[in-house]
C-alpha cells in the first residue's frame, strides 16, 4: 500500500510535465486556428491587442535572444573562471566561505533584481552611455547574467572537482602549471558537467521574467540592439496577465502560444546540450 502511495508521488512529477505540455498545446490550438503558423513564425510585428492585430512572434523571440545573449556574455566567462578558481586555486577555507555566498546570488528574488536593474544599473550605465533609454535590454541582460553566475559556477565546479586527482597529478608531474592543468586536463575531462551547467544557465536566462518585465520595457520591437527597449516572450506573458482578459479571447490564447514557443526554445537548448554531453562524455 505504502509503495503505491510513494509511486503515485513519484508519478506526480510526470503528471506535471504532461499537464504543462497538454495545457500549452490545448490552449494554443484555437489561436493557431485563427493565425496560420507561417504568419506566426515570419511576421515581424507583434500587436495582438490592436484593432489591426499582427501576430508575428519574431520580435518577442528576438528580445528574448538579445537579453539571453547579453546575460551569457557576462555569466559564461565569469561563472567559468570563478569555477576554475574555486576548484583549482582557492584554499579550502576560501571555498567553504565563498561558494555559499555566491549561491546567495541565485537566492535573491528576481523581482528584487528587476528593481536593481531599473533603479541602479540603468542609471549607472547612463553615466557611460548618456543616450541609453530608461528601459533597455542591456541592463536587464547584465543583471540576469550576474544572477545565473552561481548556476554556472556551482555546477561547473562540482564537475571539475569530480575529475580524479590522479589526472591532475599526472599533469603536475609533467611540469604543468595550475593554469595549464586546469585548461588542458581538468576542463576537458569535466566538459559534460560544464556543458550541463551552461544549458541550465541558458534555460534560466531564456525563462527569466521579472527582470525583463521591469527593466527592459514592454514594447515588442524588432531590434538586435541591446541598448533599445524591447519585450521578451516572458515579459509579454506578464503584461497580458496583468490586464483583465476574458477566458476565451484571442489575447488570452496568445499567451499560451507564446508560452509554447518559450517552452520549445528551452527544450531545443536542452536537447542540444544533452547531445553535446553524450558526444563528449568522459568515463573513468
Amino acid at each position: 500500500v505504502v509503495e503505491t502511495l510513494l509511486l503515485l508521488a513519484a508519478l506526480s512529477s510526470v503528471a506535471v510535465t504532461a499537464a504543462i505540455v497538454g495545457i500549452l498545446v490545448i490552449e494554443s490550438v484555437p489561436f493557431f486556428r485563427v493565425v496560420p503558423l507561417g504568419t506566426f513564425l515570419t511576421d515581424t510585428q507583434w500587436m495582438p491587442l490592436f484593432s489591426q492585430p499582427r501576430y508575428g512572434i519574431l520580435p518577442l523571440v528576438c528580445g528574448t535572444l538579445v537579453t539571453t545573449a547579453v546575460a551569457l556574455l557576462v555569466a559564461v566567462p565569469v561563472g567559468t573562471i570563478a569555477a576554475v578558481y574555486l576548484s583549482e586555486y582557492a584554499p579550502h577555507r576560501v571555498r567553504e566561505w565563498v561558494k555559499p555566498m555566491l549561491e546567495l546570488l541565485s537566492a535573491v528574488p528576481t523581482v528584487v533584481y528587476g528593481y536593481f536593474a531599473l533603479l541602479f544599473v540603468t542609471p549607472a550605465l547612463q553615466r557611460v552611455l548618456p543616450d541609453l533609454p530608461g528601459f533597455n535590454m542591456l541592463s536587464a541582460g547584465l543583471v540576469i547574467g550576474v544572477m545565473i553566475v552561481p548556476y554556472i559556477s556551482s555546477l561547473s565546479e562540482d564537475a571539475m572537482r569530480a575529475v580524479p586527482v590522479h589526472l591532475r597529478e599526472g599533469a603536475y608531474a609533467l611540469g604543468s602549471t595550475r593554469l595549464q592543468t586546469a585548461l588542458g586536463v581538468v576542463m576537458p575531462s569535466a566538459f559534460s558537467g560544464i556543458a550541463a551547467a551552461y544549458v541550465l544557465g541558458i534555460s534560466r536566462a531564456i525563462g527569466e521574467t521579472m527582470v525583463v518585465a521591469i527593466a527592459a520595457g514592454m514594447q515588442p520591437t524588432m531590434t538586435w540592439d541591446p541598448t533599445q527597449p524591447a519585450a521578451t516572450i516572458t515579459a509579454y506573458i506578464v503584461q497580458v496577465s496583468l490586464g483583465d482578459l476574458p477566458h476565451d479571447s484571442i489575447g488570452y490564447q496568445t499567451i499560451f502560444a507564446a508560452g509554447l514557443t518559450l517552452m520549445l526554445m528551452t527544450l531545443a537548448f536542452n536537447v542540444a546540450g544533452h547531445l553535446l554531453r553524450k558526444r563528449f562524455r568522459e568515463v573513468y
Partner: protein
Amino acid sequence: LTAALAAVRAGIARRRRYDLVFSGVGLAALALGLSTLGALLWDLGGDGVGQLSWSFLTSFPSRHAEKAGILSAWVGTALVMLVTACAAVPLGVGAGVYLEEYAPKNRFTELIEINIANLAGVPSVVYGLMALGLFVYRFGFGQSVLTAGLTLALLILPIVITATREAIRAIPGHLREASFALGATRWETTRDHVVPYSMGGILTGVIIGLSRAIGESAPLITIGALAFIAFLPPAPLQAEAPFLSFKWLMSPFTVLPIQMFNWVSRPQAAFHLNAAGAGLVLLTMTLAMNGAAIWLRYRFRKRIKW
C-alpha cells in the same frame, strides 16, 4: 646551449606569469559576483530601510505612497507558503523515497528521473500558464490562495525531490541491511531509519525550495494575482465551532513580490521607496531561509559520522 636554456627558462617564467595572472582574474571574477551582491544589498537597504516601520507592516496598500503598507502582501505570502509546504513536502519527499528505496531499475524509473531533471529547467512563467489553464479554469479554483500555493508547490517539486534523494543516498547500505536482518520490512526500515537519518538534508532542500517559492512572482501574476488587495483573507482560526475554517483557501490574494513589482512599475519615486521597503522585507526572508539551510547542512555534516 645557454641560449636554448634561457629560452626554456623564459618559457617557464611566462607560464608562471600566466598562472599568476589567472589567479588574479579568478579573484576578480569572484569579486564581481560578491560585489554585485553587496551593491544590491546597499542599494536596496539605502532606499528601503527608511520605509520600515510598524505602520508599513500593518497597513494596506494605498494610492498615497506614504500611507501604503504591506499587510495584505505578507499575510498572503505566509498563507501561500503554508499551502505550498503542505503540498510540496509530502509529494516531494514521497517521490524521493520511492526513487531511492523502492523503484526498480528499469526504463520507467529512468523516464521519471529524466523528467524531473527536465522539469528543473522549465521557466517558472510556464508553470503559471499551466496553472492558469488547469487550476484556475478547468478545476475552477479561481485566482485564489489555493491555486497559488499549488502552483508554487509544483514549481519547487524538483528541488525537494532532488534534495531528498541526495540525503537518502548518503546513508550507508549497511544500516538498511542491519534493519532488514532484524526482520524489519522495507517500509519499517524506511520509516524508522532511512527517513529520520536523512532529515537534515531533506529539511535543507525544503527550506531552499520554499525560499525560491517565496520570491517567485511571475507564475502568480500569470494566474491573475491582484496587486491591490485592501482586505485580509478570512482567518483560519475561529472563535466558534468547528474552529478551523478553510475559506481563506479560496480568497483572492497578493504576495510580497507582486506588491513590490506593482510599486516598481509605477513612475512616482515615492512608490519606488515603498518597493525598496517591500524588497528589503522579502530579501531578509529569503536570505534568512538560505542562511538557515546552509547552517543546517553544516551542522548535520559535522554531527553525523558513519
